[in-house]
């Protein structure tokens, strides 16, 4: 109960702070309307949670294959479901930002847009397979194997391809992190950004916990804790 209230209060504080402080835009290198850049406080944490959920889902999948314990399958599915929601949010907010600054909703040369789109396809394929398999154990095993295969492919895509095709990126990375990986944002921006990151992660953890409790209430075979 107090979790819910705490997240509500913290999220409200982040939203108010995001709109009451100066824009996080770096006017020296960025284009467009400064207010548009406030989406950074919400878009980046959403993308982070989507990626985090994907990694969690894969870890639970590996744990399932190791232990054959159905509770890990339930956890992997819940993480994937939430990851899908946050990936959609990150795609939509990113797309709006792209339209406002670069003039197009979508651009295939932008490697991070491609990455989030692939993440959406991966989640879609994962659920497509689950709905096509007959019984719970086959479902759990085969989707766990698939999720590991996707994770390997994602390593190639998310970590190798942006480096191969680095010159295409239009992402405003210089305003936050420069090419050497040093954080360049000001103290206020950093404070709001990292609070937002924490709040979104907490929001994810809270929804995940509630969903897990619901799943356990429905399925008596899963252990209580």
């Amino acid at each position: 109960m107090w979790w819910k209230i705490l997240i509500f209060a913290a999220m409200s504080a982040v939203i108010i702070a995001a709109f009451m402080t100066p824009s996080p835009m770096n006017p020296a290198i960025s284009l467009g309307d400064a207010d548009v850049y406030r989406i950074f406080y919400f878009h980046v944490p959403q993308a982070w949670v989507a990626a985090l959920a994907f990694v969690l889902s894969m870890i639970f999948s590996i744990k399932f294959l190791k232990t054959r314990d159905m509770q890990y399958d339930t956890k992997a599915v819940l993480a994937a479901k939430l990851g899908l929601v946050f990936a959609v949010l990150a795609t939509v907010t990113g797309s709006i930002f792209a339209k406002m600054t670069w003039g197009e909703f979508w651009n295939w040369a932008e490697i991070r847009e491609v990455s989030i789109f692939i993440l959406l396809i991966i989640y879609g394929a994962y659920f497509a397979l689950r709905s096509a398999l007959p019984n719970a154990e086959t479902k759990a095993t085969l989707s766990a194997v698939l999720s590991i295969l996707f994770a390997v492919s994602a390593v190639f895509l998310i970590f190798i391809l942006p480096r191969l095709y680095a010159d295409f990126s239009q992402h405003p990375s210089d305003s936050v992190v420069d090419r050497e990986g040093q954080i360049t944002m000001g103290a206020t921006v950093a404070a709001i950004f990292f609070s937002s990151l924490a709040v979104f992660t907490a929001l994810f953890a809270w929804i995940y916990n509630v969903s897990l409790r619901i799943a356990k209430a429905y399925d008596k075979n899963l252990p209580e804790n």
Partner: protein
Amino acid sequence: MNLPGSSVSWAAKVLAVTRKDITAEFRTRYAINSILMFALVTLTVISMALGLMTPDSDLMAALFWVILFFAAMSGLAQVFIKEEEAGTALILKLSTEGLVIFFGKLIFNLLLLTVLSVLIVPLFIILLKVTPQNWAVFLIGLVLGDIGLAGATTIIAAIVAKATVKGALFTVLSFPILLPLLMAVIDITKVAFGGGNFGDISTGLQLLVAYDVVMVTVSVMLFDFVWRQ
């Protein structure tokens, strides 16, 4: 049939599985017919749609792999689906260990893709009037691309064979896994059509070799989970 303890080597067992699949394929010709006809139909559609246009070689490289990708998707899943449908999967499971089956099926799929490539490359060159300026680059891209296609999708074929509704599932599941391969291989084919040399494709080549090795290794590690299901 190899009894336990018999002195048949591992490679011979793998080839026996491949040979069994080739014999079965010659009897029904299901996979090869659907793959080749699919490739021919896609090629014709693209060729006719382009009509008198003369698209640049970059677009041609992408179209070439679109044809190969979808043709492969139409038939490569058959290796495992036919075992499940004919009810022979269980006998196969009893006769030898999982990895032998995996590599036997992988080699069979690789042979299918080789036949497909050998037939589709001349047709592509004739109908779409594009010739690789650098054959060595083109062929190494094609060979590594085919190995990657077969290597990464064999385990997906085994997964799809267990599904009740197969439909387009094989394509849907394979696409996210094949995407790094397709991006790298289209890049290499672009260079080959444009007349570049090996210096221009070193990153792509490294990525492709790494991809082929990693995907086959991960499949080997995971195959028993799928096969024993």
